[in-house]
């Protein structure tokens, strides 16, 4: 008897961490994206611990210095240490992206669930609002909103709110569709028979299965939010003094950095922007595979 149990344990699946790594090996885009993201996180965290925040603002260091040992990414026209500016900028970009992305996803998930689970009038109302709002280009509305806010109080967080306002419809529709299909699955009926309440079913039975979709929606939202914050910075609607990546790239452009041969000024934040957005795109593609079992099968 005991030997049987033993052999059963032996064929049991390896633990989740090992499984995760095995899965990563089969999903190179996810792996690659996560690696870049990990690198960016380490870079930012390490930077935040070592830099002097003041160096990210003008008049801190000698201006217009090419990269050197002392200033690994050089300094700009305004006398900012570009390394410090990039660390702070990535942190602020991350704050906007994650804040707007997370809230957008959470709101979308809640609306999606409400819509799908209760159906009827509520469902019709939520879905038609989403469908009506979706063709309206979010950026344009963001521009109007950002332009109407008193800019004296624009901070990183206000910017995140502006980005958030139109970031919930996508997740709402995705989650709604998924919940609708989940709701018809038999394990929901079984859970009902097992005495679970509606809330219990939503949170314990349906939600866990939607995690890949929610994660994918989240990544997509973060991507959109980072992009939107970049564009808003470019049309001059962001917090100008802050070294947001978009602001730094744009100020390099307005001071003619390329033309004047200060190539190191825009390169750092541009590469950071590309890495952030690129890794999000890769992770998104990887998530797609995770959420779509048919793609997974073919790997």
């Amino acid at each position, binding site marked *: 008897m005991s030997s049987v149990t033993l052999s059963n344990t032996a064929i049991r699946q390896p633990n989740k961490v090992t499984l995760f790594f095995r899965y990563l090996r089969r999903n190179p*885009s996810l792996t690659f994206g996560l690696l870049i993201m990990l690198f960016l996180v380490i870079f930012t965290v390490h930077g935040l611990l070592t830099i002097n925040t003041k160096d990210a603002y003008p008049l801190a260091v000698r201006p217009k210095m090419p990269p050197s040992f002392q200033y690994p990414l050089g300094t700009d026209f305004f006398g900012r240490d570009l390394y410090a500016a990039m660390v702070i900028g990535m942190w602020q970009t991350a704050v906007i992206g994650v804040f707007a992305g997370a809230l957008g996803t959470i709101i979308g998930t809640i609306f999606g669930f409400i819509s799908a689970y209760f159906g009827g009038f509520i469902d019709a109302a939520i879905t*038609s609002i989403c*469908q*009506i*709002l*979706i*063709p*309206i*280009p*979010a*950026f*344009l*509305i963001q*521009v*109007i*909103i950002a*332009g*109407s*806010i*008193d800019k004296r109080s624009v901070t990183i967080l206000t910017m995140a709110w502006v980005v958030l306002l139109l970031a919930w419809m996508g997740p709402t529709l995705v989650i709604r569709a998924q919940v609708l299909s989940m709701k018809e699955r038999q394990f929901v009926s079984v859970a009902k028979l097992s005495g679970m309440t509606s809330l219990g079913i939503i949170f314990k039975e349906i939600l866990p299965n939607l995690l890949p979709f929610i994660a994918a929606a989240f990544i997509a939202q973060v991507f959109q939010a980072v*992009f939107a914050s*970049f*564009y808003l910075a*470019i*049309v*001059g*609607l962001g917090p100008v003094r802050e070294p947001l990546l978009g602001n730094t*790239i744009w100020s390099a*452009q307005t001071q003619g950095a*390329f*033309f004047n041969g200060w190539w190191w000024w*825009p390169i750092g934040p*541009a590469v950071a*922007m*590309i*890495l*952030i*957005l*690129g*890794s*999000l*795109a*890769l992770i*998104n*593609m990887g998530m*797609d*595979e995770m959420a*779509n079992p*048919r*793609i997974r*099968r*073919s790997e």
Partner: protein
Amino acid sequence: MNFRLLSKRLLFLLMVVWAASTITFFIPRISPKNPVRERFAELARTGGFSPEDLEVIVADYSQRFGLDKPLLQQYGDYMWGILRFDLGISLNKFPKTVMQLIYESLPWTIGLVFITTILSFILGNWLGALAAWPRSPDWLKNIATSFVLFQGVPPVLLGILLIFFIGFKLKLLPLGGAYSIGTVPDQSIGFFLDVLRHQLLPGIALVLGSVGGWVISMRGMGVTIQGEDYVTFAEHKGLGPRVIFRDYYLRNALLPQITGLALALGNLVTSAIVVEGIFALPGLGTMLNSAIRSNDFSVIYGIVLFITIGIATLMVIVEFLYPLLDPRIRHQ
């Protein structure tokens, strides 16, 4: 074609227009700014208005633009105007109407945005299909997949780099403008090619920036199709891989992508707004940008609304075209 569906879609269109115009109407009015005063205050920079006069003029023009009426009445007038394709008068460019301004700048945007959307659609779907196609060589798959990374390159950034390296350093293509300075537009092939040459760099920036999205979704679609029985069946029938790729695989995978076309257009418009500025192309984007910078509210609303209606209309058109492309779907 079914009339009930048609009327349903038209209702949807109306709702979109209503929502967009309501948002654009109310949001700026929540803020305490008076666009007329802002415009005249700015004008006073070069002139000699006295403060008292300015207030009188502001009142006069507020009346002219209907800004002194109760909010609801303004809203009603605004809506009624939209129904008559009257988006109002530009504050900054008085006496021009917003529709005139849109008409002047629209062709450039249509030229740029449409062509780049379609190019990126074709290129992205082709690459996405190749990335998912089991028979394509590994290097091809890798190249196709690496286009996803370009999604992370904002077209504006790409535009700046292209201008500097291709335009300025290599002098291969013009650095900006819609056509060569001093050329008089006509309908000759020469002018056509000149415009094309000027659209090339902004076009590349927009296409590269948007192609990745199509690659991702097409790749997903393609893999799904592969598992379908009809593909397997076609293989067993002994059809060549080219035929299978084109007739069974690409065609079926492509269909759902078309629904995304109208929405993608919306995203591209966002990029185009900023890219047009970089390249000094006098399209809707540049118009919008200058309106934003000069507080020309009626132009901002007008363009936002116009773009929204355009996208929503395209969505509806695509929906009706869809059954023509996919014989499996028939509107009942």
